[in-house]
Each structure stands twice: as structure tokens, then as C-alpha cells.
């Protein structure tokens, strides 16, 4: 009937949209992988860049990328999740909270260069941290906070009140209730925020360039400067130095993101079982 046709149309459209998205996805990722993977060699993975990045590999850059991302996630995750918990579980509903939440969202729309310049002025210069993993990590964590907070908060909202009631009625404290009953129901929200945040941190250029620097040395301490793959990629691409190395770096980055996401999924699955 008419209704049936409508439904068919509706799901057809959704299927189409999903198919197009999948197509675009494959196109972009394929575009990069096909051009990049043939240029990834053992040397590329284990060597330092030479000749302005035209030759050699990107080993210190890989390590730098992981280092900076890890630091930013370690800083942002507890703060973001805790802030989300505060907003949705502790804060009295009111104007102030709405305003704070509102401005956190505004933070999401600030261009990354400005984060970079802020990080440079505040962490690098004012706090004297220099171009370093920690300066970059702090700057990036500010950038990914809104996503993390909002995603977690939305998940918290979907947990039925009756679960909270059940726990509180047993004499559990608010925190115990949150930790043992509410949060376990939200792991997908936290995970989503985290994965989107990791993506943002790993793919960021401007903010990192201005706060982490671009040193090609292998970073040891968090106060060392280093270079992330995104920054390296940016230099290679924008100065037009080497197409092969550019795509190889991009492909490798995608592979690394894939590995990290899978790992995050796996770990959260593990945590949920406990």
C-alpha cells in the first residue's frame, strides 16, 4: 500500500545514503592506501628522515605521534569523563551549568590554529614548558574535551533513573552508583568520545606544530620537542617535497589509527566484562 511504498522509500533512501557513505569511505581510504602502501618499507618504518624528508623513514615521527596522542588522551579522558559526570550527575540544573556547557560547545568551534597560538603563548612561553610533548598534549586535550564531555554526557543521560534508584536504595553513595552502575552502561559513549578525540589529536596539524614543535629527535622526556606524523605530512605536502613519502605517511597514519581504535574497543570490552 501507500504506507508500504513510503517505508520502502524511506529505508531505500537510508540504505542509499549509507551506501554512498561507504563508497566515499572506501574512496578516501583507498585513495590514500593505494598510493601509500607501496611506499612503506622497513627502512621507512625504522629510519629517520633525511634530505628534508625526501629520503629515509619516519621512525622518530611515529614515536612522537604516539607519545603526543597518548599524553593528550591521558590528560583529557579523566577530566572529560569527570566533567561529564559532574554536569549530568552532580551539578544542580541551572543557568550556570547551561552557560558552562554552552561555552564548552563553543570551544569545539574554535579553529585549531587558535588553540595552537594559545598553547604557544600559554604553555610554551608563559609556563615555560617549551616546545614539548607536554605542551602539545595539554593543548590537544583542551581541543578534544568538548567531544569527550558531550559524548559521555549523552550516554549518561540514556541510563534509566530506575538503575540509579536501585543502587541508591541499597545504600550506595552517589559515586558508587555512578562508578558501578551508571558508567558501565555508558562505555560506548565514553569510547566514542575517546575515539573521536584520538582521531582529532592524531590528525591535528596547526595546534601541534606550534606547541610540540618539529624536532626530528627521538623524544624521551615529556619536555622534549618532537614531530607528529600529521605535522610531517603537512610539511611534505605543503612544500611539495615528495609525493611518495607524503602518501606513505598518510597510509601509515591510517593504519595506526585503525590499530589504536581496535585496541581501544578491545580494552573497553575487557573493562566492561570486569
Amino acid at each position, binding site marked *: 500500500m501507500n504506507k508500504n511504498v513510503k517505508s520502502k522509500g524511506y529505508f531505500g533512501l537510508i540504505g542509499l545514503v549509507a551506501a554512498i557513505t561507504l563508497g566515499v569511505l572506501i574512496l578516501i581510504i583507498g585513495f590514500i592506501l593505494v598510493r601509500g602502501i607501496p611506499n612503506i618499507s622497513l627502512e621507512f618504518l625504522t629510519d629517520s*628522515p*633525511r*634530505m*628534508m*624528508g625526501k629520503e629515509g623513514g619516519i621512525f622518530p615521527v611515529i614515536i612522537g605521534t604516539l607519545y603526543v596522542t597518548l599524553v593528550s588522551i591521558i590528560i583529557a579522558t579523566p577530566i572529560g569523563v569527570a566533567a561529564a559526570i559532574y554536569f549530568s550527575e552532580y551539578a544542580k540544573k541551572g543557568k550556570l551549568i547551561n552557560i558552562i556547557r554552552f561555552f564548552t560547545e563553543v570551544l569545539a568551534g574554535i579553529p585549531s590554529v587558535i588553540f595552537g597560538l594559545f598553547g*604557544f603563548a600559554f604553555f*610554551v*612561553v608563559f609556563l615555560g614548558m*617549551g*616546545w614539548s610533548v607536554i605542551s602539545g598534549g595539554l593543548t590537544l586535550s583542551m581541543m578534544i574535551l568538548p567531544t569527550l564531555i558531550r559524548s559521555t554526557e549523552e550516554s549518561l543521560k540514556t541510563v534509566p533513573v530506575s538503575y540509579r534508584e536501585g543502587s541508591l536504595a541499597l545504600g550506595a553513595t552517589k559515586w558508587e552508583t555512578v562508578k558501578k552502575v551508571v558508567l558501565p552502561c555508558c562505555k560506548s559513549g565514553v569510547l566514542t568520545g575517546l575515539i573521536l578525540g584520538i582521531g582529532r589529536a592524531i590528525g591535528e596539524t596547526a595546534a601541534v*606544530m*606550534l606547541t610540540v*614543535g*618539529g*624536532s*626530528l*629527535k627521538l623524544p624521551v622526556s615529556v619536555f622534549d*620537542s618532537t614531530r607528529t606524523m600529521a*605535522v610531517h605530512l603537512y*610539511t*611534505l*605536502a*605543503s*612544500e*611539495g*617535497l615528495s609525493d611518495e613519502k607524503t602518501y606513505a605517511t598518510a597510509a601509515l597514519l591510517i593504519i595506526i589509527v585503525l590499530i589504536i581504535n581496535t585496541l581501544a574497543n578491545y580494552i573497553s570490552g575487557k573493562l566492561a566484562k570486569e
Partner: protein
Amino acid sequence: GCGSGGDSKDAAADKGSVVIAGSTSVQPLSEAVAEAYMDSNPDVTVEVQGGGSGQGIKSIEEKIADIGALSREVKDEEKASVADEYVVAKDGVAVVVNKDVKVNDLTLEQIKDIYTGKIANWKEVGGDDKPITVVSREEGSGTRGAFTEITGVLEKDDAGKETDKTTKDALVQPSTGAVKKTVGSTPDSIGYVSLGALDDSVKTVKVEGIEATVDNVLSGDYKIQRPFVYVVNSEMSDTAKAFIEYATGAEGQKIVEENGFIPVN
């Protein structure tokens, strides 16, 4: 000009670290020089950061870098923060067109007219009857600065006030690589890129009959060029000084040449 000579092998100078920050155009060159320098001076580490020319000035102001790198000349208002400046290399700016463009040679006047929008069709300069797509760099870019000044796109009035007359219909790309990609893939387009980045994805045109080559820039025949400058503040360390001497010296200049830029000494 170059700083005074002095013994580059004194005890303090071959240890420690040097931080260079600034222009992303100079960054790859600095890295190449740093790499060679560290090979011969294992106790010195040279770190090269990006950020842009403005960032280079800021970094020496804030004393978080030893050397600031600029892909343009130091502006008057920046002079106060700069104790000393050293030109380490020159970079030719090549005028490039899409491969389908039939024109091989342009005068400075024609280039100016194209970039100010006076000439909008290739037939006016001997090509096909096709509208020209003009590709330029962003405001503030060193490349653009040199290009507009030398071709006269940048007009100076009697009071010395400069106005950049680049047509508003120009596509603006934020980097050498992006201009090259754009010109390479956009039919009937023209752009300008750093000499060091030239490859066969685009066609280089002669300017006033002179080809854009290292030799022609060196000889001064090819006019469109700009300097790569290192600037320092008044607290330059010996290590930094030694590095600058290396970069401007014979070995450093050889690396400059190897990478497609123009040596200055």
C-alpha cells in the same frame, strides 16, 4: 651580512643544542643542513621547528628559539627584535602554468597584467582563446611578497605606501605544494612556486626570455627571487653562532645548492 669570523671550534660551541624556528619554507633546508652539521658535531643537537616567519620572530623575542627562520626580508617593524640577520640562501620563484597552456615565455609586464587582472585571456599573450585562472599565495607569504614586488603587482605610491594589486579573482593557496597541485590540475591556470619545489607536474615559463634555473638566479639574470634569512636576538649562544657559520660557510652552501636553492656565498 655575515657575523665576524672567530674560531668555530672553541670548547663551548661544539656542545649543546640549537633551536631553529620559523618559516616552513626554510624548514626543510634547515633540516638538511642540521642533519649534516650534527653528523660532524655529534655533541650538538639542532632542532628545527616550523610555525611560519612571524613565529620565527616571535620565538627569538620570547627567547625560546636561538635562531628564527624567515622566508622573506625582515620588515621594518620587526627590526627592533632582531639583533642580527644572516641570509643563508636565495630562492628563485618560478612562474608555472598548466601543461595545456601553449605559452612558453612571458614578460614581467605581462605577468603583472595577468596578476592584476588586466589580461584575462591567454590569447592576449599568444596562447589559445581561454580565460586565465590565476593562482596566487596568501597575504604575508614570503613567496608572494617577492613575486609581487618584483613583477610590480605591488604598487608603491609616492609616499612609499604599498598596495598589493593582485586581482580579487585569483585563487589563493596557502603553500607551495598546494599551488603546484592546483596549477598542475587546473586547465589554463598560472601560478608561482619556489624553485626548489619544481617538478614535471607543471610547466615552467621563461620570464623575459630567461629560464628559471639556479644558475640564472645566481647570475642575477632571472629576476624573481627572495632570501632565506636566519635572525637572532642579542643573546646568541656560541653554539648557535657556530651553526650559522656552518650554514653560511662552504659546506652549508653546498647543501643549499644540492637541494635546489641558491647559495649566497
